[in-house]
């Protein structure tokens, strides 16, 4: 009975002191919303990128020619990676399962009838489908003969069809790639998009054909390799490095004239960026929690004088300490729950809204972010609501009443 009248009394106080209640709730809402939104967006972003990178094949290893930086780099002669290197790696590196050359030609023009679009053209071997996890879902993938005879055949991505407003009937038909006629033999399975960039705006042709069209890449190949399994990736990297250094006649003091990059390293690089982003955003979250906390603290402490007198009066007319504590706890918890609830709802709302943007990733709201935001703001609310009340409740009623 006394419990309920105390609790009811507390709620009545909240309505009576509208401004104070609204300000406290607002501070909590801001803190909780900021935490949830920021953390969720970062989490969604991180997860999205890792999933994307993992989807490209975790055992992949890329090799590309690269002139080392500095004097040592300048001292080197020509920096090359050619078909002989490819053959050597393919036959001698036991840790590798497959290797495909990659001739990257960005901005190739595709023409069908009167329509012309630009795509990324990649000259590859049949093994590329597996190494990069680019299967064909209609028609056929490349065959060895396509490469051996340098046939003018191609496999196209879904985005190419969409842009040219063509249907799957294109398989068997032909189109112009940088002015040459190619027969379409297959269509790649869709990879979706990455930050709004379609991954399907791509056309694959045999690398032998590509080298004829763009001979500059003959000494400038990229190799896409697949290690036997994830454990063999470091071994594969070592084998490739040793082999290429030997083939390129590098002395022990000379740096590599190529780079070997594993999918894991790319993932790690990204994860570092991700971690940096998370720490920056954690700072922002921390600040918003601090601001929210100070706001709550301020509202609670500013009303201490008035409330101390109120407590003195309540004690003078018969309130026990526990009545006072119950009242103030109810007040603080009600504010925290309302503020926290609104903040969580708003945080989810904003996160969902962010997900709806076409260039944005699917946002994940982690439970710990909700708990963190809510815990800290509700914690400050309750602590700063309760401590002054507790201090006042311990005073003689007359001292509380005379409080200035």
């Amino acid at each position, binding site marked *: *009975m*006394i419990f309920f*009248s*105390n609790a009811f*009394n507390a709620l*009545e106080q909240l309505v*009576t*002191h509208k401004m104070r209640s609204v300000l406290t709730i607002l501070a909590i809402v801001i803190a909780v919303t900021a935490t949830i939104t920021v953390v969720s967006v970062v989490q969604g972003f991180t997860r999205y990128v890792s999933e994307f990178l993992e989807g490209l094949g975790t055992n992949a290893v890329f090799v590309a020619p690269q002139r080392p930086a500095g004097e040592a780099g300048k001292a080197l002669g020509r920096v090359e990676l050619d078909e002989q290197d490819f053959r050597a790696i393919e036959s001698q590196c036991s840790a590798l399962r497959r290797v495909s050359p990659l001739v990257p030609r960005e901005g190739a023009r595709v023409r069908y009838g009167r329509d012309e679009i630009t795509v990324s053209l990649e000259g590859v071997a049949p093994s590329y489908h597996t190494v990069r996890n680019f299967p064909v879902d209609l028609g056929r993938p490349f065959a060895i003969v396509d490469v051996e005879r340098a046939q003018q055949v191609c496999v196209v991505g879904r985005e190419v069809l969409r842009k040219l407003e063509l249907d799957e009937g294109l398989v068997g038909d032909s189109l112009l790639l940088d002015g040459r006629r190619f027969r379409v033999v297959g269509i790649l399975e869709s990879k979706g998009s990455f930050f709004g960039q379609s991954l399907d705006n791509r056309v694959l042709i045999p690398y032998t054909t590509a080298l004829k069209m763009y001979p500059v890449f003959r000494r400038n190949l990229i190799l896409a390799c697949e290690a036997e399994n994830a454990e063999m990736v470091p071994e594969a990297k070592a084998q490739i490095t040793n082999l290429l250094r030997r083939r390129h006649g590098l002395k022990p003091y000379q740096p590599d004239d190529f780079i070997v990059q594993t999918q894991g390293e790319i993932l790690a690089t990204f994860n570092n960026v991700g971690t940096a982003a998370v720490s920056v955003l954690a700072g922002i979250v921390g600040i918003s929690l601090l601001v929210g906390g100070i706001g709550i603290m301020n509202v609670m402490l500013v009303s201490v004088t008035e409330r101390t*007198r*109120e407590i003195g*009066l*309540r*004690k*003078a*007319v*018969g*309130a*026990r*300490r*526990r*009545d006072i504590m119950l009242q103030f706890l109810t007040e603080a918890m009600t504010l925290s729950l309302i503020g926290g609830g609104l903040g969580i709802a708003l945080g989810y709302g904003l996160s969902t809204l962010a997900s709806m943007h076409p260039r944005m990733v699917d946002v994940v709201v982690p439970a710990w972010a909700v708990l963190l935001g809510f815990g800290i703001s509700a914690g400050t609310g309750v602590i700063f609501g309760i401590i002054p009340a507790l201090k006042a409740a311990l005073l*003689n*009623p*007359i*001292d509380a*009443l005379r409080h200035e």
Partner: protein
Amino acid sequence: MDGQPLIRLQGISREYRMDAEVVRALRGVDLSIETNEMLAIMGSSGSGKSTLLNILGLLDVPTAGQYWLDGQDVAQLSQSALARVRGRRIGFVFQTFELLPRQTAIRNVELPLIYTGTPQRRQLAIEALERVGLADRMKHRPNEMSGGQRQRVAIARALVQHPAILLADEPTGNLDSRTSEEILDLFETLYGEGQTIVIVTHEAEIAQRCRRIVRLRDGQIESDQRHGDAGKRTAVAGAATGGGGG
């Protein structure tokens, strides 16, 4: 009732420890108050009147001496027992009213009933407001009332539990003479109904209307007088009193 006074103070002292010096607001006060007395505490400013009344109201704790209320040594009471006594046995009226500013008259009067878990608070609050003649101001907030009306609300709040003793610290100190007169009439009516009342005042006219006047000086009782023409009931009460010193 069984020969015990309602209130008995013995050697009550109250010291305030300031930085270096010690202010002795009360020094060894002995006082007995019987049921249905109307007593005025007088004295110059700073003589310790409010300090004494606060101790009587259990709002403050003496630094020395003993205080028996209803024969019970209040020093032995737990915090929650003290709260209970404040709520049920004592009604306190402050010079500055001390109403909750944002709440209606009726809400203010209901306040003590919350802490005793009394049902039908509203009904009791309405009755108390009717007793002080404020039936038509129940829904008003303090800032919508005159000083006299506010003090009546405060008195209604003090009366709502039917306390054994009503303590008022300069209840008319912030009121003009006509309003003071009304408040005093109200006290006399309550007294006539059997209410025990202690009023702190420094106005002689007010004190004259009380049946007993205790004068304080420098924290000590200087005199304790009863009127010769002590009203209807006081004769009985006076006979039972052993006297309050002086």
